[in-house]
């Protein structure tokens, strides 16, 4: 069913058809006028934050635009809109905040985009369980603020907290920065309320509650089976205390050994992130120039320390230079490990002491608390400055894959080698668990023209995903599949695609939900 993304010059956005205008009338009746076929809206909802979409935007093109955008306010409205779409055979694409990095919201077959941000109520908060039931369109930051007033948190704090919704987290199986301790979003779900493609309301609850529809079937479904309207999530207490540590290791292997030993010792850091030598250099610039941590100054230091060097590197990382830069980076050795422990103060102190002992035994050099403190203060700052790199005619992207510990070094080396000819590449080992971790690669590259940038970007992704697969990694740890990783998804799932098709036929027999995605 999938077909290539259409790319239209932005100015040539096709005028709305009579069918679209009729659809607008029908939908408006359901949502009390909260619907639009305006070109500006259709343009705005034509993409998410998939860097390829940014490259297209800069070259004045837009991927296949939706015909209509609607803003429902209730589960009942979502149900009626779904029934309307199913009756007319029109695609329906759920839209959270559009912060996805894989093109998940791109309406490959046009149709209706369902923006859920007006469904943002906290429905119930049970501080004893503790659990919250909320609507799926609530932005992470708002939910955390409301929970924080009661001393609670979901524990799910992605870098995109301010620009992503609960529904988006669930639909992509996202990970917060502290997922090593609190789990990924799928570990937090007690139940989901979904309007499926038939317009039926499905409550998928964890056992021992009855019903065959368990949350796992909808988690990660990226809008292809239904619209997640509500979620009931388990909560944790806001930590009473934190301890910050940093250790330097000579080389990735030594750092990984220490990371593993920390988890083996029964420690449960909120953050345990090892930067490879390239990332260590880039990250280090963010805090090395002094010890002042006043608000405002930090932001400037982050720009000067991290983003400016990245921009400079990006422009230098063109064609031949990328390879040379990566080889030069081979001479770097030092890897920085950041640790943050949180919880009650007695335990935090004990865990930090034990971690220091484990790291010292593994040859780590103590770098004090500052690097990890700086990380915490900048934890949500990084995302919003990347467009400057695209403005500079370059590209920046992240690939997060995951594997078990015995494969981590091979995954690292193979992906790095595969990407080296195309862009400067750094990596951090994150979301560490007893059995393995995620490897989050950052690429910064450029090429002569936007067309060349796009070609280079595509070649890079193909090589990187093939290398990850060959080394035994899974192709996505928390950003989902979307359009960017559709082929990787299909080849990993293999014969299992029939399962996806069976789910699709069960919950969305008319094939209206985000068609063309997830191989169904």
């Amino acid at each position, binding site marked *: 069913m999938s077909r290539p993304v259409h790319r239209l010059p932005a100015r040539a956005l096709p005028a709305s058809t009579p069918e679209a205008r009729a659809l607008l009338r029908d939908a408006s009746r359901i949502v009390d006028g909260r619907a639009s076929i305006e070109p500006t809206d259709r343009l705005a909802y034509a993409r998410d934050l998939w860097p390829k979409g940014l490259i297209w935007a800069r070259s004045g093109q837009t991927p296949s635009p939706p015909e209509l955008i609607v803003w429902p306010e209730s589960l009942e409205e979502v149900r009626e809109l779904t029934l309307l779409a199913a009756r007319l055979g029109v695609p329906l694409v759920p839209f959270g905040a559009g912060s996805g990095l894989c093109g998940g919201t791109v309406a490959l077959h046009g149709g209706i985009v369902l923006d859920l941000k007006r469904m943002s109520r906290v429905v119930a908060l049970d501080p004893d369980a503790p659990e919250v039931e909320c609507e799926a369109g609530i932005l992470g930051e708002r939910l955390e603020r409301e929970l924080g007033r009661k001393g609670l948190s979901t524990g799910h704090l992605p870098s995109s907290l301010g620009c992503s919704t609960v529904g988006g987290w669930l639909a992509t199986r996202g990970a917060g920065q502290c*997922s090593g301790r*609190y789990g990924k979003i799928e570990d937090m779900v007690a139940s989901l309320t979904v309007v499926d493609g038939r317009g039926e309301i499905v409550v998928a609850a964890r*056992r021992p509650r009855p019903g065959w529809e368990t949350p796992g079937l909808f988690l990660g479904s990226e809008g292809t089976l239904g619209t997640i309207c509500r979620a009931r999530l388990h909560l944790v207490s806001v930590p009473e205390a934190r301890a910050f540590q940093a250790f330097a290791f000579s080389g990735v292997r030594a750092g990984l050994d220490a990371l593993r030993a920390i988890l083996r*010792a029964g420690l449960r850091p909120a953050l345990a992130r090892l930067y490879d030598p390239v990332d260590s250099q880039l990250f280090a610039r963010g805090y090395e120039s002094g010890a002042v941590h006043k608000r405002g100054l930090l932001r400037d230091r982050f720009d000067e320390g991290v983003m400016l060097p990245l921009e400079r590197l990006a422009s230098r990382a063109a064609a031949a230079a990328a390879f040379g830069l990566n080889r030069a980076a081979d001479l770097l050795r030092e890897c920085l490990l950041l640790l943050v422990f949180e919880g009650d103060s007695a335990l935090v102190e004990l*865990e930090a002491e034990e971690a220091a002992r484990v790291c010292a035994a593994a040859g780590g050099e103590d770098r004090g608390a500052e690097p990890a403190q700086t990380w915490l203060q900048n934890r949500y700052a990084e995302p919003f400055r990347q467009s400057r790199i695209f403005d500079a005619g370059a590209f920046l992207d992240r690939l997060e894959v995951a594997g078990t510990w015995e494969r981590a070094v091979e995954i690292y080396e193979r992906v790095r080698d595969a990407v080296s000819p195309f862009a400067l590449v750094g990596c951090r080992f994150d979301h560490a668990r*007893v059995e393995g971790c995620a490897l989050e690669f950052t690429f910064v590259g450029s090429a002569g023209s936007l067309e060349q940038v796009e070609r280079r970007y595509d070649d890079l992704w193909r090589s990187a995903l093939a290398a990850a697969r060959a080394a035994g990694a899974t192709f996505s*740890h928390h950003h989902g599949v979307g359009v960017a990783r559709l082929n990787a998804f299909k080849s990993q*799932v293999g014969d299992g695609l029939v399962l996806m098709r069976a*789910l699709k036929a*069960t919950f969305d027999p008319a094939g209206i939900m985000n068609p063309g995605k997830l191989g169904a």
Partner: protein
Amino acid sequence: MAVAAHDLTQLEERVRKAAGVPTRTGDGVVELLPGSLREVARAQAVKGMLGQDAERVVVSLVAFDRIEAPDPAACTIRVGAGANLGEVEATLQGWALTLGWLSPKARSLTVRDWLEGRHAGLRAVPGNRLESAALSLGVALRSGGLFVTPAAPRSSGGPMLETLFLGRGGQAGTLVEAQLRALPRPELEETFHALVERPEDVVLLLRGVAASDVRPVEVHTRRKGRGFAVAITVATYAFRARRDRALVEGLLKGRGEPRAVGQVGGGAPEFEGELGWDRLAGAIGSAGPLGIYRIARESVVVAARAPVKGAVALDSPPEPLPAPLLGILDGAGQEVA
């Protein structure tokens, strides 16, 4: 393609050729003896094509009870689905690892029964969460193909398709092999005793322990006089043992009277079931001696001499998958055939 074979030897020859795996006959059936996941899938596809003769053909999984040595880096272990959990656990203990603190009945299951049955391979992990022990599954699909889930700690590659096999009783396919996650075995286990007044106090005590980041692994309670005797076993590490002990003792003092209460556990349980927290106090109050295992924020497993009200028996059949969904898998199987 229905095969009308009147004679077992003839049938055996036919299926051996078609499936390309060794066979044997006995008790009026032909056994196909595949040795790999791929062979299981092929053998099942052949069986699926036999029409009424399928009743006389069994795909045997005897070859899939092996237990490999654990991977010490990732703390995982590869096992055949027929392996016994008790033996898996014994192997892991030699490496200072554990599958998790399972309920008494779970310990005697095969890997297949544990993963495909109501247990769904769930165990409580630090943070008091439930997590499936299956890192990766190798399944021969009902539709005839193979499905191997990626061996990664976590992923975000589409819906969690493994949940069509975990706790589903083999409806969508046959589990053949698995890579299981183990946990580092904490250095210490310590049991604390107390006498409390009401069943609700036991629940609050347990919730308090779990919320303090202490790891309760097993609890026993029984009526004693006008109150309830409780024995809580927690697992901990040397570096935090003193803190955990002080915390549990503090909580016990707050909720009751810490003191030795004699034997609390009550013989071999007949019944094991999964129970939500909202029903736990009722179960403590009305059941006889009760064991509480797999203690997680989602639910607990209770073990008792008789069925516990509100608990879903862990040996009851799993929820049926809808017939249309299974029909699609069968349809795809016929296409493959």
